[in-house]
């Protein structure tokens, strides 16, 4: 690559680099973004996207999350009939309907929340999981409505409600309607509290903005995933506002635990056991076998 490289005109050089084929077929190997260990993808998948070398928790899709939490039998999806609309005819670089279509094509979901009724170690429960890859897991009308329908299903079944958050905040393409989803979801949680049904809130990387500042911290128990970024304002906005460097580990789950903002940090591979155990305790059921 030395003398030959020098002979090539700059344009070709650039093109060569851009089109350079990956040495590894896509999807077979995966590199941990935290420790740079090269991992066999199926190993990572069977380990729930947690790096076996450094325990870094990689993002996980909403359906994979529901799969790992719910028992295999007797699942029923809730609120799938609710679909997004373009209220404001919102257009930035892209029209909002196009943005929705692109997100749907890349995730296989039609909005950023999937809700499912089922059981966790035989304890009936309703679980909602955010799909972060769908427009940053942002909360618009559909997310809010599915959340509320999930809460209603939990009330009808006298079952607890669990939400696993992964969201950048409110969906600005829906304007004030998306802000109002904060009020809507939080208000629905008062029904669970009145009915003495537990709400467990699991905060994963990242849980920010309007999602963080509504139902996320209203859990009877609030759990964080290791290393998750959790906060109201994004670190960049804060840095620009206060004009100082943020402390090490700022807004990470471990930081929140230290500040008293969350109850515990739970490794993803132990989450199902932990949730089941907590539910059994709160609902005065026999210990989980």
């Amino acid at each position, binding site marked *: 690559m030395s003398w030959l490289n020098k002979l090539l005109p700059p344009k070709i050089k650039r093109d060569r680099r851009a089109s350079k084929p990956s040495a590894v077929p896509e999807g077979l190997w995966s590199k941990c973004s935290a420790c740079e260990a090269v991992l066999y993808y199926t190993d990572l998948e069977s380990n729930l996207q947690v790096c076996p070398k450094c325990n870094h928790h990689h993002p996980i899709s909403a359906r994979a999350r529901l799969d790992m939490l719910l028992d295999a039998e007797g699942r029923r999806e809730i609120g799938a009939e609710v679909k997004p609309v373009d209220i404001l005819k919102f*257009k930035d*670089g892209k029209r909002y309907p196009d943005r929705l279509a692109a997100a749907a094509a890349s995730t296989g979901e039609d909005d950023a929340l999937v809700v499912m009724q089922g059981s966790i170690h035989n304890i009936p429960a309703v679980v909602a999981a955010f799909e972060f890859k769908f427009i940053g897991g942002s909360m618009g009308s559909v997310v809010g409505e599915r959340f509320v329908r999930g809460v209603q299903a939990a009330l009808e079944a006298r079952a607890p409600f669990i939400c696993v958050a992964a969201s950048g905040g409110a969906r*600005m393409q829906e304007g004030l*309607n998306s802000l*109002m989803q904060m009020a809507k979801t939080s*208000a629905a949680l*008062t029904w669970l509290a009145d009915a003495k049904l537990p709400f467990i809130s699991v905060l994963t990387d990242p849980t920010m903005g*309007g999602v963080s*500042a509504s139902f996320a*911290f209203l859990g009877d128990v609030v759990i964080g995933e290791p290393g998750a970024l959790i906060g109201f304002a994004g670190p960049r906005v804060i840095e620009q506002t206060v004009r100082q460097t943020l402390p090490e580990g700022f807004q990470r789950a471990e930081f929140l635990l230290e500040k008293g903002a969350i109850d515990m940090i739970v490794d993803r591979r132990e989450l199902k056991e932990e949730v089941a155990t907590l539910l059994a305790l709160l609902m005065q059921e026999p210990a989980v076998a």
Partner: protein
Amino acid sequence: MKPTFLDFEQPIAELENKIEELRFVQDDSVLDISEEISRLQKKSQELTRAVYAKLSPWQISQVARHPQRPYTLDYLAGLFTDFHELHGDRAFADDPAIVGGLARLNGQAVMVIGHQKGRDTKEKIYRNFGMPRPEGYRKALRLMKLAERFGLPILTFVDTPGAYPGIGAEERGQSEAIGRNLFEMPKLKVPVICTVIGEGGSGGALAIAVGDYVNMLQYSTYSVISPEGCASILWKTAERANEAAEALGITASRLKTLGLVDKVVDEPLGGAHRDHGQMMNNLKRVLQEQLKELRGKPIETLLDARFKRLMSYGRFKEDAA
């Protein structure tokens, strides 16, 4: 008070300057130019009416942030009597970006809570530009609970760029403080009337804006994100804020059409800052009327309606299952 004119008001400002000069001349002139002055004054009013008849959403957000716009404490002085400010969240501090306390509206005891901006530089800093920290929201909730215990209606005034994005605010649970208010406010067993008087900035505004009525002053704004913030995310530059303001639908009239706001309160010609007195009268009439109506209803009816309304937020389509 000499009005401060915004960029788009420059033609009005020029006219007003001319009127001012003529007045000055008239003082030591033998000629009577009062006719000329009143002619110009009329022209200025017509011009103001014309300019304000077609304000863009971005221009409206300039009016909403006008440095002379009445703030919560101005309404407290102008609308209420017997105001006694109550301080502190009983856990950490008193947040001057939110003020609250007991007062009377037409003799009726009420609890008033609102964001407070500062007028001069020193006060702006003291009030943190109206951006509350968690202790502000916790104070607000404490006062709401206090009002509930004694059966006092709650009136809130919303005027904030947003909740403060600071290190301490995060450490003390900004998210939790806002979320807690959103959880508690729907259940308050007293009438709650919320009025956006200036800037309704996102979650920091909503945290004291859940109630039976949500009013907006004619030139106030209410938005999920500031036009500048939206523009810098979507187009990587805050300079396209005018486009973002348009796209986000942040004005009172637009939000009324979308069904997110109950009542738009008229402002004086040229905005609330031009005539504080008239603004007070307009708002007082609306608040008294709403309060009277809400107090006539059983609390269960109020809470039902409040929840129904909260659950109605959002637009989506539903496929036949």
